């Protein structure tokens, strides 16, 4: 670890874990150095959500984000740099418990989509976030994995294209 970082205002980065709990379940965990209500706020306020859900470091771009965070309310996220070829994710919130629990469906893939449960557990001013995805079948989870891998491949292809475009205007590799 870089000890110099300790003196800086930014706290040390917490670890993200991903585990396939069973044939149908995927669990992601992460601790945040903030009370649950703030993490919950960042997860349920569109303007805040937009700032982190599509990290630039992953080459992602969130075109639009509509969220009606209440039981039965819908959300729709549109990704992609290319407006003619958007990548949409949508579903409905089935449980909303302020500061502690969010459950939503992922309907873009039809019946194969998982149900996502996120819990925010506060302890000593920190929040343990657990995101649990339950797929209808093992096949659906496997397919999602392959799909995610493909989507990531597409993202990198987009980046490749962008780099080529940039390369035609200026010489790259000298920076």
């Amino acid at each position, binding site marked *: 670890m870089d000890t110099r970082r300790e003196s800086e205002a930014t706290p040390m*980065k917490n670890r993200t874990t991903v585990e*396939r709990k069973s044939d149908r379940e*995927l669990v992601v965990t992460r601790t945040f150095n*903030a009370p649950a209500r703030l993490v919950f706020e960042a997860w349920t306020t569109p303007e805040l959500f937009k700032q*982190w*859900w599509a*990290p630039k470091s*992953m080459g992602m771009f969130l075109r639009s984000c509509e969220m009606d965070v209440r039981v039965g309310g819908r959300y729709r996220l549109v990704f992609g740099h290319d407006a003619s070829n958007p990548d949409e994710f949508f579903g409905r919130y089935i449980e909303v418990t302020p500061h502690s629990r969010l459950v939503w469906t992922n309907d873009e893939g039809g019946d194969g989509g998982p149900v996502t449960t996120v819990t925010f557990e506060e302890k000593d001013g920190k929040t343990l976030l657990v995101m649990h995805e339950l797929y209808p079948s093992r096949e659906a989870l496997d397919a999602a*994995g392959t799909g995610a*891998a493909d989507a990531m491949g597409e993202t990198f292809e987009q980046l490749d294209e962008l780099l080529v475009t940039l390369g035609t205007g200026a010489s790259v590799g000298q920076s």
Partner: protein
Amino acid sequence: MVQYTRARLDASFAALSDATRRGVLEQLGRADASITDLAEKFHMTLTGMKKHVRVLELAGLVTTEKVGRVRTCKLGLRGLAEEAAWIERYHQLWEARFDELDKVVEELKRKEKVDGHKKRE
């Protein structure tokens, strides 16, 4: 990813701690086989062999497929590597998201502090 790998390694080592199961892997390395074939080869009951195969399956070392009444076993290492690769990508995505979320939350914390001071004044 680290935790995922560790859980998988634990399961793999547990699976490999048994001589029969190592033998089964060696056998499947030569050719796919049914549970009945394996039970005969290792002089075991069908139930006993099923248990061993299940342990290997849970560790991701073997995959099985039932066609009609026969369950065929084969080495599952390739599947494991593929799965590990996509879990790793998924992990990268969430790590990147949560690093950004840290920033958003820090900003909220900072604002709250400022607002709190204002209220108390």
